[in-house]
């Protein structure tokens, strides 16, 4: 099984969480192949998690280059499932899924159209038609519009990139500066969204592609880093958050994993800030709470019977740590110069 997103830095990609969840399944029996975009993605060096590590071309290089590399990986170690975990690579994997299936590599992904409707630029329209509560937002492709933006989106507001990146602004001048910053890093479109004060709740869920939910676990963050990233969290029994996840899966007929980023305001109202079309970095909590969603996706991809996903243990917590892995110069050299590394190469 192959997983991407091994960039387990202080703003971690989801790959390591997905790998740990897969390994946590009693039915797992096989090798884990890590697919990375840089020889310094920390997850590549997790020797207790990753059996084979490969560098692959960046999504910005197009699908053909990626396919050629996956064919090489398949030919050398064999792949049965690929779980991509990064927003920017999803279009490429979606475009390739039939050709991967023809090679015997299974995926369980949303469609290109589903990916598009939940994009930050389209979310408002989706919300209007599906009854999902999204804060006032607007796509701004011309910074001049920011001088009149308060007519649609009140300050303070967020200036967000299509994939990643968000800058807060309190004044038009700040908004314009933030706009240029976001465009320089993430490109167009840029989305401006009202800030909602309240408590953050995230839901990790998997849609079955027919309008139903395979499983969902809501989580409240209990510890934030100084950059505002969740560093600990707790599985909660939030029926409204679960209902929103179910509603989202129903209106989009979502296929595959997703994460809802919600805020509950002081009066108990829910606001949908973003939908991520993939697992969140904290998805290992779902395995810990007894509803292993990454494993569920691996089963759905292969058409294998699903594990029991009927309940999860409310109150299960995750507390993240940063740990220093020991590796050899040789491992690094192999990844930097050959672009692959296998635990079998290791001298005991």
């Amino acid at each position, binding site marked *: 099984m192959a997983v991407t997103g091994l960039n387990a830095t202080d703003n971690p990609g989801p790959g390591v969480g997905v790998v740990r969840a897969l390994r946590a399944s009693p039915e797992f029996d096989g090798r884990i192949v890590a697919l990375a*975009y*840089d*020889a*310094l993605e920390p997850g590549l060096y997790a020797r207790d998690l990753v059996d084979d590590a490969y*560098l*692959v*071309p*960046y*999504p*910005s*290089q*197009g*699908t053909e*280059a990626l396919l050629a*590399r996956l064919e090489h990986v398949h030919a050398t170690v064999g792949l049965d499932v690929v779980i991509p975990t990064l927003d*920017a690579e999803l*279009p*490429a994997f979606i*475009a390739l899924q039939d050709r991967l299936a023809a090679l015997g590599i299974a995926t369980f992904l949303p469609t290109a159209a589903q990916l598009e409707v939940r994009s930050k*630029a*389209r979310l408002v*329209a989706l919300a209007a038609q599906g009854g999902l509560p999204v804060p006032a937002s607007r*796509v701004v*492709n*011309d910074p*001049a*519009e920011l001088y009149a933006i308060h007519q649609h989106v009140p300050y303070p507001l967020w200036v967000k990139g*299509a*994939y990643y990146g968000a800058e807060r602004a309190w004044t038009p001048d700040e908004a314009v500066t933030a706009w240029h910053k976001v*465009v*320089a890093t*993430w*490109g*167009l*479109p840029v989305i401006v969204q009202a800030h909602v004060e309240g408590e953050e709740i995230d839901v990790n869920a998997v849609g079955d592609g027919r309008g139903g939910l395979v499983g969902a676990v809501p989580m409240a963050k209990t510890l934030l880093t100084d950059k505002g990233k969740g560093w600990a969290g707790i599985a909660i029994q939030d029926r409204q958050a679960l209902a929103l996840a179910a509603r989202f899966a129903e209106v989009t007929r979502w296929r595959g994993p997703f994460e809802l980023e919600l805020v509950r305001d002081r009066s108990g109202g829910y606001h949908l800030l973003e939908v991520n079309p993939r697992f969140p970095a904290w998805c290992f909590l779902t395995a810990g709470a007894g509803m292993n969603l990454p494993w569920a996706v691996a089963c759905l991809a292969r058409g294998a019977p699903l594990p029991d996903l009927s309940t999860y243990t409310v109150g299960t917590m995750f507390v993240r740590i940063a740990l220093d892995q020991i590796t050899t110069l040789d491992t690094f050299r192999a*990844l*930097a*110069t*050959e*672009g692959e590394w296998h635990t079998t190469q290791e001298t005991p």
Partner: protein
Amino acid sequence: MNDLLPAYERPVLVRHARGAMNKFSRAASMQPATELDGVPYDRLLEAYGSPLFAFSERTLVQTYRQLEDAFATRWPRVRIAWSYKTNYLDGICRLLHQQGAWAEVVSGFEYDKAVRNGVPESRIHFNGPAKSEADLDKAFRGDAIVHLDHFDELALAERVARRLGVRPGVALRLNLATDGVPAWTRFGFNLESGEALSAVRRLIAGDVLQLVGLHCHIGTFIPEVGPYQQAARKLALFANLLRADHGITVDFLDLGGGFASHNTLKAQYLPGTEASPTFARYAEAIVDGLEALDVDPLERPTLVLETGRALVDDAGHLVTTVVANKRLPDGRRALVLDAGVNSLFTAFWYKHDVVPTAPVHGIPEPTILYGPLCMNIDCMRDTLQFPPMSPGEHLVFHHVGAYNVTQWMQFITYRPAVCLVGQDGQHALLRRRETLDDVAGCEELPAWIG
């Protein structure tokens, strides 16, 4: 020379840094482009010199057919009017006219060029915000389709038509709001404010110009289909209103141009080859919007397209030669090329796809590509990972067929030659390289200078 020894490469040493350590990055696995439709670039350079614009007839014709098929299979009457300003080399225009394209022009000069290319004047759509009285006179005599841009032009057009004693068919250019694309409100009559409706009333009251079409052009390089669906729907609803309230049935709805080619904007992350919608997706969106028309399916208006860059961009390539290698104080490598932004105007907007014309070896490094001008703005490509190159080696910039051979400027040096590679491997000039006489030929010397 000793073929038994490994080839010498200039020595390089690149420090490993996060974000630049992927053996499978674009630079590390860069594929050269050695030929254009079977003709080696080297041979083209031998024949026509460097730098050189080279067009592929095969790509041009195929792209035209793809555009036409995408729409003709979804709408009964479709007309493609070739947007002259995108590329008005006679050879390119004629190839497109041979495929059936009408002409879309925005000046008297372009109008004359279309006529010279054998386009019947009744097949010319005449756009633009600054047509002169002489332009309108010529267009009305020739029975071309004038697209009115503002009230002053409307009044002028009425005067000209009355003077000529004709009742010409005209279209109104509209501007309208769509989600995600800043509205080009400086062109045409605004739809939402009611200005468009006033223009219709004014036409009816004037009773000399016949309204035969509605036109909008929402922008250029729009890599999304949603705005087209909205624009088409707005035109359709406006056409419904004209029928219901004023008894006017227009012959055509013109959605303008703006489809994205396979280029990549500077601010785009995914390459245009992945990110740009197909013609089929644009067509679906537009036809979906036009479904709002409440006319009998047999009386549907003609759908006019003024697609420019998406038709010709991919067919054009710019071949250039490395003049020098430099090492900048910050450690970056710089290449000086013999083609600059004076030829490749679009280098200001795009991250052009650029590759060597011969297989490359060696370690890619952050490299910036400069043109030959003694001007700081002359940057052909912002820093990218690029394999080592030596003076005399060639690079080719792809997707450069649109707006360059029209917006290029004669500045510091001559404009380069442009050639065409035909469908069967023959090749010929479309435009020769400029000479001193071309440039100085229109100069005059006041007698007292002598």
